[in-house]
C-alpha cells in the first residue's frame, strides 16, 4: 500500500469513524444531562421563537457592539466563507462528496477557488497574529486554539500545493492533503471546532431561556 492508498483508505476511514463517534459522545454527553423544570410564570408562553431568533440574529453584532468587534468578526467571516467556497465549490471535492453521498452540485471556476484559498490562508494568518498579539485573546488561548488553527489551515495549504504541483510529486501532495483532512477529522470532536455544532445548541438554549423571561437576546 503506498502513501496515497493509505491516506484514501484506512486513514480516512478511521478518521471518519473517530469523528462520528467523538461528535456523538460529546453532544450526547451534554444533551443527556438533566434539565431542571422551571416553575416560574413565563412572560412568553412559547420559548422556541427565542431560540430561532438568537440562532439567526447573533450571527452579527448588535449596533452597540459593532465599533469594538468589527475587525475580528470580519476576518472570522472571511475565512469561514473562504473555507465553504473551497470545500464545497471545488470540482474534485464535489466528486469526492458525490462518491460518498450520491449528491451532486455545480462547481465554481477554479480561479475562484484559488483566490478563495489564498484569501482564506491570509485571513487565518491574520487570525493567528491577532490571537498572539491581542492581550485578551492571548490570555484566553490554550493548546486547543493553536492546534485547531493548525488543523484548519493545513488542509488549505496542502490542497493549494497539490493543485499547484509544488514541492513534491502530485500523488504525494494529494496524500498529504488527505492525511491533513484525516487529522482535522480526528481532532474535530475534541476541541473548539465543535463550535460548528454547539453554536446552534448554545444559542438556542439561551434564546429559549431568555424568551421565556422576555429578557434581552
Amino acid at each position, binding site marked *: 500500500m503506498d502513501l496515497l492508498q493509505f491516506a484514501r483508505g484506512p486513514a480516512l476511514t478511521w478518521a471518519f469513524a473517530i469523528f462520528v463517534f467523538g461528535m456523538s459522545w460529546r453532544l450526547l454527553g*451534554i444533551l443527556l444531562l438533566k434539565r431542571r423544570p422551571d*416553575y416560574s410564570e413565563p412572560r412568553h408562553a412559547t420559548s422556541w421563537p427565542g431560540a430561532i431568533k438568537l440562532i439567526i440574529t447573533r450571527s452579527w453584532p448588535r449596533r452597540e457592539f459593532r465599533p469594538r468587534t468589527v475587525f475580528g468578526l470580519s476576518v472570522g467571516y472571511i475565512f469561514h466563507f473562504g473555507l465553504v467556497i473551497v470545500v464545497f465549490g471545488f470540482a474534485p471535492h464535489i466528486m469526492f462528496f458525490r462518491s460518498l453521498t450520491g449528491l451532486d452540485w455545480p462547481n465554481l471556476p477554479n480561479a475562484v477557488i484559488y483566490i478563495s484559498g489564498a484569501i482564506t490562508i491570509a485571513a487565518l494568518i491574520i487570525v493567528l497574529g491577532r490571537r498572539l498579539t491581542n492581550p485578551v485573546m492571548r*490570555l484566553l488561548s490554550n493548546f486547543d486554539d493553536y492546534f485547531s488553527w493548525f488543523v484548519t489551515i493545513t488542509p488549505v495549504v496542502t490542497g493549494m500545493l497539490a493543485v499547484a504541483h509544488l514541492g513534491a510529486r502530485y500523488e504525494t501532495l494529494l496524500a498529504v492533503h488527505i492525511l491533513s483532512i484525516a487529522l482535522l477529522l480526528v481532532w474535530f470532536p475534541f476541541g473548539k471546532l465543535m463550535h460548528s455544532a454547539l453554536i446552534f445548541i448554545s444559542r438556542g438554549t439561551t434564546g429559549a431561556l431568555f424568551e421565556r423571561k422576555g429578557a434581552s437576546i
Partner: protein
Amino acid sequence: MSTADIDSKHPLELDQPRFSVKNPEQRYDKQGDMPDAQRVETAMRHFVKDFGAVAATYMESCIHCGMCAEACHFYVATEDPKYTPIWKLEPFKQAYKREAGPFAAIYRALNLKKKVTVEQLEEWQELIYDSCTMCGRCTLICPMGIDIASLVGLARHGMNKAGLVPHELWAVAERAEREGSPLGATPKVFKDRCEWLADDNEVEIFVDKPQADVIAAMSSIEIMKYPDSIVATAKILNHLGLNWTFRTDGYEATNFGMLSGNSEWQKEMSLKLINATIAAGAKLLILPECGHAYGAMRWQGANVYGKPLPFRVLHISEFLAENTKSGALKTKPLGKTLTFHDPCQVSRRGGAVEAPRDVLDGLGAELIEMQDTKGVNWCCGGGGGVVTIHRADPLRYKAFQIKMKQVDDTGAELLVSSCSNCRQTFDDGQDHFHWDKTMLSLLELVADNLEDK
C-alpha cells in the same frame, strides 16, 4: 467565625455614603478553618453538582474569541485582560473539563487539565466577586450565546461552600440570614420605621394585616437609607384603593443568600416572602425597586418553592405600568426632560424593559434615552453585591465613569432608575466624583406627582 466575631470584625457602617461593613485587610478572604485541599474539593464538588445540560452546553461552547471583554464595563474601563468575562471562570472551566465533561476521563488519565489549586481560587475570588456584577451584558455579545453571568452565579455557589467569599459580602449575607435583613432592618426596626413614617407623612401604612389582596415588600437599602420609598409605596397603593399590607414575617426582598452564592440561605430568604404572601391570602406580591430581588423572586422564587407560586409577582415598575395604562393611576404632568437607567436584573435579564417607559410616558416626561439603552444599557457597576465590597471601590469607580458619560451625554434634567442598589451606587459615585447628577427613584417620582383625589 462566631456571630460576635462577625459583628465586631465587620461592623455595619450605616453613616457612609453606602451601606457596608468594615473593609477587610486581606486581598482575598476565607471563612471557616477548612484545610486547603478540602476547600478546593468542596468548591469544585458544589460547582459541578449544579451542572445541568444548560451549564454544560455553555462550558463546552466557548471559542476563546474574547469578544465578551468588549461588553464588560470592568474590562472597557481598565483594558485589563483579566476582566474578560469568560476568564473569570477559568478555574471552573478547568475543573469542569477534568471532572465532569464528556471527555473528563481522558483529561484526568493524561493529566491534560491540572487540578485546580486553592491559590487559584483565592486569586479568582476577585474576578468572581469584585469584578462581576452579573449584569449579563457579555451574554449579549457572545457569538456562541453563552450566558456567562449565570455561570458566574454557579461559580459563586462553589466558592461559598468552600468559604472563599469576600468577607463583607459574606458578613452581610450571614447577617441577613440571622436577623432577617442584611443592614439591620429587623422586623422590629421595620415596624417602628413604618410607624414613624406614617406619622411624619400623614399616610396610612398597613403592617401585618392578617388578610390582604396585595403584599408589598421592601429592600433593606430602602428601609435604612431611602425610607421615602416606603411612604411612596403606601401612597400609591392607598391612591389605588387596594387592600394591601406589609408583613413583618416577610418584608425583605433582597437576597444576599443568592448574591453570595449560598443556595440554602437563598431558599430561606425567598420562603419568608413566599410564606408571608400565602399567609395573607394575597394574589399579588409587589417587589420593590431592587434589581436582584426581582431575579430572585420573579424568576427563581417558584423554583426555590418547588412548584408554581399561587400569586403573581411584579416589580414595582411593572405594577405602576399596569395601573398607568389602565388609567387607575392618575398623575400630574412632570414637564421635565429625564433619562432612565435600566437596572440590569429587571430590564436586560428580567424582561421588564418597557414598563418604566410606560410609567414615564404616563407622567408626561420627555424621555431622552442614553446611547446604549434598554437591554444593552451599561451597568452602574454596583450590582451582584459588588457595591458591598470595599476593596473593589477603585475598580467600580472606573466603571462608573462610563455611566456618568452616558448620562451627561443625554443632557437630560433628571436621572431616574428603579433599583435602590443602582441608586446607592449612583449616590456613592456622585459623592466620589462630586458629580452634579442625583439619581431619583421612579417610584418616588410617581408618588410625588399623584393627582389629588
